[in-house]
């Protein structure tokens, strides 16, 4: 951690709303609010920049947003579409670095300290990623470049939308000094009110307080504030994600119906899923079957086994059993999927082996 790191924070601009405007041309250049309907108790998930002009922002009750901007088009979220776009974006990140940490569908940190592309220039990489995102998804991202996560995140917010901003190690401390405390990531409404009441308004005010006092007022977070007010943030970009499930699915060119066809397809998917699990040195205990009927009605059926799931002869019986309470054979099927979950590492297993009354004799 001695040498200076190069961190990029990518933040998609009005992500859900942008996906809607991309997919539905009639929404373009119009105030779009993705989230609950104005007459529901829902809130705004994201709104387009056209809607933001009216003071609408995310997390605001939809009813309130409607009062501010009655001409806005309220759209129900389509998470499948957002997920798809998000995956496409993550694929782009992977072209530049293995070390990226998605924070949500529309936000991620990338550590490009060891990247060789573009002579290792983080700014050029950020530019290239933005361009690739635009090319591949027709969506706009803002990027922040700096030497740690805290500053990179602040930087990505500066020239939004379609922004790109660099905070160099030399600028870091001065930059933080002039920053109002409420702009600090991790300082929310409650904390900033508390800080204001203590006369702390900017990074500079914060920096002038000794560590003991910060810890006295803010407990554990005190040390974090002490560090970030000096532009220090050593949190690594963490791409270690515990894999929770492995899934494969297939959408048919033409719907299938016959029970034996469905079973055959599921067995095929099962093999693929199992080989993925094995590849990762894992074993699974839960099997989930996903069925989407021709009319897009989707159901899942799931079964957790005490023993690990293998390609054993028992699988057809389990699949048959899972299909019991479904309309398989009666309704056309558009998509099938198999997900294996309750994963654990192969090596962590079987330190002790449970003996079985029937098979160990």
């Amino acid at each position, binding site marked *: 951690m001695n040498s200076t790191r190069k961190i990029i924070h990518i933040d998609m601009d009005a992500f859900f709303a942008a996906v809607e405007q991309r997919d539905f041309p009639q929404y373009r250049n119009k105030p779009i609010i993705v989230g609950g309907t104005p007459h529901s108790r829902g809130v705004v998930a994201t709104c387009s920049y056209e809607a933001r002009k009216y003071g609408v922002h995310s997390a605001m009750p939809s009813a309130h947003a409607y009062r501010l901007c009655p001409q806005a088009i309220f759209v129900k979220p389509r998470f499948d579409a957002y997920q798809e776009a998000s995956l496409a974006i993550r694929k782009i990140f992977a072209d530049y670095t293995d070390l990226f940490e998605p924070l949500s569908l529309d936000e991620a940190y990338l550590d490009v300290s060891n990247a060789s592309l573009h002579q290792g220039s983080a700014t050029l990489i950020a530019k290239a990623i933005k361009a690739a995102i635009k090319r591949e998804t027709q969506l706009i991202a803002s990027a922040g470049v700096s030497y740690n996560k805290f500053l990179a995140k602040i930087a990505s917010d500066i020239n939004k939308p379609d922004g790109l901003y660099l905070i160099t190690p030399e600028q870091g401390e001065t930059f933080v000094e002039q920053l109002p405390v409420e702009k600090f990531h991790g300082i929310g409404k409650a904390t900033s009110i508390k800080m204001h009441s203590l006369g702390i308004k900017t990074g500079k005010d914060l920096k002038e307080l000794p560590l003991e006092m910060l810890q006295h007022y803010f407990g554990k977070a005190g040390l974090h504030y002490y560090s970030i007010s000096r532009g220090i943030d050593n949190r690594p970009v963490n791409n270690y994600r515990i894999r929770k499930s492995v899934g494969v699915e297939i959408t048919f060119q033409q719907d299938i119906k016959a029970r034996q066809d469905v079973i055959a397809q599921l067995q095929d998917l099962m093999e693929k899923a199992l080989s993925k699990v094995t590849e990762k040195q894992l074993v699974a205990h839960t099997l989930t079957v996903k069925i989407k009927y021709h009319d897009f009605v989707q159901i899942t059926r799931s079964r*957790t086994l005490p023993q690990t799931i293998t390609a054993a002869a028992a699988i057809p019986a389990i699949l048959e059993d899972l299909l019991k309470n*479904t309309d398989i054979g009666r309704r056309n099927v558009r998509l099938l999927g198999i997900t294996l979950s309750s994963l654990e590492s192969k090596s962590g297993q079987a*330190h*002790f*082996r*449970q003996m079985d009354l*029937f098979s160990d*004799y």
Partner: protein
Amino acid sequence: MKFIINREEILLPLQQIVSVIEKRQTMPILSNVLMVIEGDQLTLTGTDLEIQIIAKINIATADPGSITVPARKFLDICRLLPNGAEIKFELQDDKVKIASSRSRFSLSCLPADNYPEFAESELENHLFINAGKFKKALDKTVFCMANQDVRYYLNGLLLNVSNSKLKLVASDGHRLSIYEDNLDQPTGFESRIILPRKGVLELSRLLDDPEAELKVEFSSNNIRIFIKNLIFSAKLVDSKYPDFGKVFQQEFFNQIHIQKQFLKEALTRVAILANEKFKGVTFDISPGSLKMSTHNPEHDEAEEELVIEYTGEPLTIAFNAQYLLDAVSNLDSELAVLTIASNASSCFIDEPGDCGYKFIVMPMRL
């Protein structure tokens, strides 16, 4: 169709029926309860096609007819009406009107004609048993049934009748419970059937009156049990129960006597630091002493030592602490007797003296 009933008369039977009805159904009518009025009797039926429960309730004011209504909604309505409320039920066109004091409900319903018939073969075997006795037999065994095992015959309970002897066996392969009792009347037949897990659990819930006399009828495919005003039916698991006799034909170490309460407490404490999934706890047994120890992937360690009554060779064996706890907790005596096979391949747990039941816990091997 029309009747008036007191909430207390319909609530319990309705609850008993609703518990077999699956929440997720592809046939909407299976989420409904079938209600039939014939003479002065109201009959409620619920099924998931594997199990069926019928309740018969005597009723004073009624017009005959039949209908099916959404079971959970109907139950919730009855449940949330005040104690002792008088409930009026009337079918009007395609709606069921429910009224009580100042509450009014109009419930959508489906015609009774479409309610699926529960197919039963002829039930040639009969026996009678006291509900309290049968409930005790179930309590001592059901906890060992497998749940969703691919060896589907283990997801159930073996009921073995041999003239006047009754034997219940349940096992998930890792442990086994066996319970034996005598019937009051000889049956004159020998038979082995497997009751499905869900049926066993539902049945056990219905045996709340230990005084009741049960009439049990069954064939190789179906079982039907008359419990006071209820009729419980289930399809049987179509398989042979695997042979477990070999586990008894072994050499054993001397018996170990342990105070049940001390054993339970020590096991529970040690298990805190056992591997969360496998709960492995090692027993080092020597004359007069039992040392339990465990560790987990985080390298936490725990140890307990208990005074026991044991004379014989020292031995080491490991168990899933939960299996052992389940077994020990189901003992009626204060003293637990552990008998370990001489190749440490199984452990028998029962009471000192004759008790009619036995638990077997299979060890874990390193």
